[in-house]
């Protein structure tokens, strides 16, 4: 499994892994793709009472054909909600957070781009990013914002990528914005636009 290499950038979040938060009255768990496997482990480690307090919002993303959702549903009868996309999941999460109180705790697992968006949304509800339990699973693909046109791209796996909005060739920096939940893409070789180095697959 690919793991996230340590970064020199302080802005780069760390993902220490999922574990149950004692005392919480409600566990609001969010996952995309392979994050389902982290949730499975978490649920298997819990007693019935803890599970009764959990609700899962899941979107399969690139793992759709693996059918993880079907393994999770029986563990959380009535509390396992599957969504077709990250956007639809976040819409529901927003509703849940609006209703939540301080004894509701948030968990996020899956790709970095997904966790970043969950955390950014929660921050808007006054949740400190450090109080969200996180675990990275699956692809190292990055969510990138083009600093020039401000457009977002999901699932970027290469060091250099053409912006899907404005077409500029972008170098994917290690600089991460917590507010946006995205890495910065900055124009490659700004002096000579024709000399663009080959893109390397860095974030499989």
């Amino acid at each position: 499994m690919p793991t996230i290499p340590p970064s020199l950038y302080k802005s780069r979040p760390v993902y220490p892994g999922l574990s149950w938060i004692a005392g919480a009255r409600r566990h609001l768990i969010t996952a995309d793709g392979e994050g389902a496997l982290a949730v499975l482990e978490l649920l298997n480690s819990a007693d019935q009472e803890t599970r009764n307090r959990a609700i899962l919002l899941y979107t399969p993303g690139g793992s759709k054909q693996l059918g993880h959702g079907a393994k999770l549903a029986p563990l959380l009868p009535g509390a396992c909600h599957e969504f077709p996309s990250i956007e639809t999941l976040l819409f529901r999460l927003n509703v849940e957070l609006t209703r939540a109180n301080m004894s509701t705790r948030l968990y996020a697992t899956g790709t970095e781009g997904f966790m970043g968006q969950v955390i950014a949304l929660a921050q808007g509800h006054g949740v400190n990013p450090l109080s969200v339990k996180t675990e990275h699973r699956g692809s190292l693909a990055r969510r990138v914002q083009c600093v020039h046109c401000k457009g977002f791209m999901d699932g970027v796996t290469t060091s250099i990528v053409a912006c899907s909005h404005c077409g500029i060739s972008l170098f994917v920096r290690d600089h991460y914005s917590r507010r946006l939940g995205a890495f910065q893409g900055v124009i490659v070789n700004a002096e000579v636009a024709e000399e663009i180095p080959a893109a390397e697959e860095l974030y499989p």
Partner: protein
Amino acid sequence: MIHAHDIRVRVTAIEEVAPRTKRFRLQAVDSSHLPQFAGGAHITVALGDDDGALRNPYTLSGSPQDRVGYEITVLRAADSRGGSAFLHEQVVLGQEVSISAPINLFPINALGRRHVLLAGGIGITPFMPITEQLIDLSQKFELHYAMRSDGAAPYETLLRSRLGHRLHVYRSDLRERINLESLLEGQPLGTHLYVCGPERLIDGAINAGKALGWPGENIHFERFAGPPPGDPFEVRLAKSSKAIAVGQHQTLLEALERAGVEPPSLCRGGACGQCEIPVIKADGELLHYDHFLSEEARSSGRSIMTCVSRFKGRELVLDF
């Protein structure tokens, strides 16, 4: 000991605001504006006849809008090592003292959605500027104020008119107790809790928060237990090769400051970790009174928090 960054101020008003509790107003000797502060900040006041051998932290209880004078509200502590007794009995109107610039280790969280403030007795002081600020910022908040009896603690009347229904008073003479669990239960997401008061209240609030699954990031507290007095002892400094005597009512930190070696410090209450100094040799017992070092760190004896902790034994050598 006068520090380079100290501000010389004059006491321009002294008022008894509750039994054994006095408010002091301090204005710059040269009539200049004082540095701005936010609610929760404290200053260090140099005390004692002996050129300020003692330096005590006091929370600023006045208005952050007031640039002309600072106010501190001081309870005459029964077991005072001299700080509050000096302020209460020796300091007179017009007297000059030295203070540090404000330091804030208890600020309100600007991203908070709601603020629950919890004060016990004299622990009300940081909430005077904080409530003013929260009102200015149109933030949602409530203040819970525990006291012994009516009039036993300062500013109740002022707070009633300022806060109205947002103030909740609990009097222990009427057997009114704050039920911390029910206070914290059901608070909306994004709530922050701030506690200032006796240890019991702080520990109770932390435990109630934990029991309800609150994130530690949303619980803030300020302990104001002063450093305990103890037997005098001597300390040797390896780097600056000095031998320094620490008096009975003096802290190790104050003794180092007096010797002119400029040790680090911030909260002066054993909480922030800033004043930690490595121990080279301790032939005797380190008396740790801080809230900063872990159990392991304490028993390893590798360092000491100079603002509150002491030593008992033959020889103490610090890496400083």
